[in-house]
């Protein structure tokens, strides 16, 4: 007997039904979404392997795969697994985190412009980092802490400023843009006041970079995401219901305000992990869910394809950052801003036409 069945209902898409253990496990699977997610993931892995193979020390792809399977010479193993793998893995999982974070904010605001960078988190994180870098001359972890503090305080401020007996998506975006603009001017002022050396260090942090990130950071990020991502999956069902409006969702048994607050905390936390580790990496969170949505043709934004697409985007951006002007290494944030800026312009034009 086949595990999946068809359904007599025409959903307008191919749907497979999975029922196991009586009906204790029963799911309606969107075939196209799964296929697209699979292909995107595969592409991400292919690009990741190519990234692992390329560099000053070129390694043939079969040898890279051998090294990943633990069958390579000590030298190849060192280059691929110890030097390059942590960074590429970080790109993959941080991209996924940004993709999920963007999907959450876009679902909450019911707007393709909703994303943690737009609602002020990134600007606030930069402010926090700048304070630490310019005034306290802090270490990596102090800067990360400053960024976290700044980002979370900003997100909270935006949430409270947008509160009118509940938070409405569009108001969140408008308030976020306003607060971001204010913080950006503050950031510029702090940069101008700083010494040249310090300002340069701050500027590098401010574009977001994966340069020099190693195994220790990979573990830290992986552990945090292993906690956050399953929580997102748990909240994905009430999140979908909220897209129909608060009244409809509440009538169906969703606790609207609590779900929204939980999702915002998770969305901010996901971005915060990435920002604390690599600095603000813009536009992945904005673009990944929308690109995934167009490819899957599904209703609303979905977390799983957004995660896969985020991973692909950041791995590709990181490959370009490393190889486009080799041996000069670009910060990955520069690449995402360039590519994302084009996407953003296109999106604004499309939205304006509607």
């Amino acid at each position, binding site marked *: 007997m086949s595990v999946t069945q068809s359904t007599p209902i025409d*959903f*307008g898409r191919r749907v497979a039904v999975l029922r196991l253990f009586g009906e204790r496990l029963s799911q309606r699977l969107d075939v196209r979404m799964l296929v697209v997610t699979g292909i995107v993931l595969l592409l991400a892995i292919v690009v990741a392997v190519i990234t692992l193979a390329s560099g000053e020390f070129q390694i043939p792809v079969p040898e890279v795969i051998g090294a990943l399977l633990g069958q390579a010479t000590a030298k190849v193993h060192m280059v691929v697994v110890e030097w390059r793998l942590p960074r590429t893995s970080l790109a993959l999982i941080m991209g996924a985190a940004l993709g999920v974070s963007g999907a959450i904010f876009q679902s909450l605001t019911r707007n393709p412009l909703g994303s943690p960078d737009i609602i002020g988190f990134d600007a606030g994180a930069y402010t926090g980092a700048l304070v630490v870098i310019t005034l306290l001359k802090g270490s990596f972890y102090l800067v990360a802490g400053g960024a976290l503090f700044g980002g979370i305080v900003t997100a909270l401020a935006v949430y409270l400023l947008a509160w009118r007996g509940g938070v409405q998506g569009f108001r969140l975006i408008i308030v976020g843009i306003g607060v971001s603009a204010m913080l950006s001017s503050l950031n510029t002022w702090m940069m101008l006041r700083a010494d040249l050396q310090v300002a340069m260090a701050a500027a590098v942090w401010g574009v977001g970079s994966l340069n020099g990130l190693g195994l220790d950071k990979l573990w830290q990020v992986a552990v945090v995401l292993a906690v956050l991502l399953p929580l997102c999956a748990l909240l994905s069902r009430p999140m979908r219901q909220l897209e129909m409006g608060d009244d409809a969702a509440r009538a169906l048994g969703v606790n609207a305000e609590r779900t929204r607050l939980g999702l915002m905390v998770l969305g901010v936390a996901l971005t915060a992990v990435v920002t604390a580790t690599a600095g603000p990496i813009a536009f992945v969170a904005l673009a990944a869910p929308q690109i995934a949505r167009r490819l899957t*043709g599904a209703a609303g934004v979905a977390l799983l394809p957004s995660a896969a697409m985020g991973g692909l985007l950041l791995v590709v951006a990181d490959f370009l950052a490393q190889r486009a002007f080799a041996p000069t290494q670009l910060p990955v944030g520069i690449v995402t801003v360039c590519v994302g800026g084009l996407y953003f312009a296109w999106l604004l034009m499309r939205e304006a036409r509607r």
Partner: protein
Amino acid sequence: MNKHDPNLTASAEAPARLTARNATIGYDRRIIAEGLNVSIPDRSFTVIVGPNACGKSTLLRALSRLLKPTVGEVLLDGKAILSYPARDVAKKLGLLPQTSIAPDGITVADLVARGRYPYQKLIRQWSRDDEAAVITAMAATKVDAFSHRLVDELSGGQRQRVWVAMVLAQQTPILLLDEPTTFLDIAHQIELLELLRALNRGEGQTVVAVLHDLNHACRYASHLIAMRDGRVVAEGRPGDIVTAELVEEVFGIACLVIEDPVSHTPLIVPRGGDLHPFEENFK
């Protein structure tokens, strides 16, 4: 009234499952209605009417648990509605809000399936019951023929039927609808009201709707609640309570109440003419 009266089947004497007891409801510090006592007769087609801002939608929101009364309470099966877990209420009482948003790019069947939320768990999201409920709801509202289409592409009447199907998939004995006909043309208004009547009579679902059109209310309601300024002015069978005096008291218009030649329910004909307040402005 007339012995052809279609309302005789639904009895207003059946015990109420849903009641508001001495409920004061409002938003923030603005009180909309004070000390409301309302019972929804079981298996009735109850229609709430009244002028704009009379509190009829607010009452519906309180009855559906969306709004907590500041004083008093709403009871469902004899227990305070807010004491139930949200999901349990969602299995007994469905609500079609005034504004609902169809997510971008959602198909009809997908939207209807979202009505199954109260029955689903993370790992149990598409049982045979879910499937059967969606099929039944789509057949009852005749949206099954276009179940594959995008909701955005449908006409207003079709879209409203899809939303009703979503609430039906929730399989609740009580169904609340907030101005379900407001944005529909006359043909689709009648179509929707006929659908609600069929649900009420066929499935024995209790239907509670806020309607703007008094004649529609009189024609379809088995139990009418007329409100003004946050008070219930009259309630009962339309044939028993709707008089010219009541309409004047509730809506402030002079009118004639005659018998509807088709349904034999009260038919309200506004007078206007010499009573028209604007006439002298143009003399």
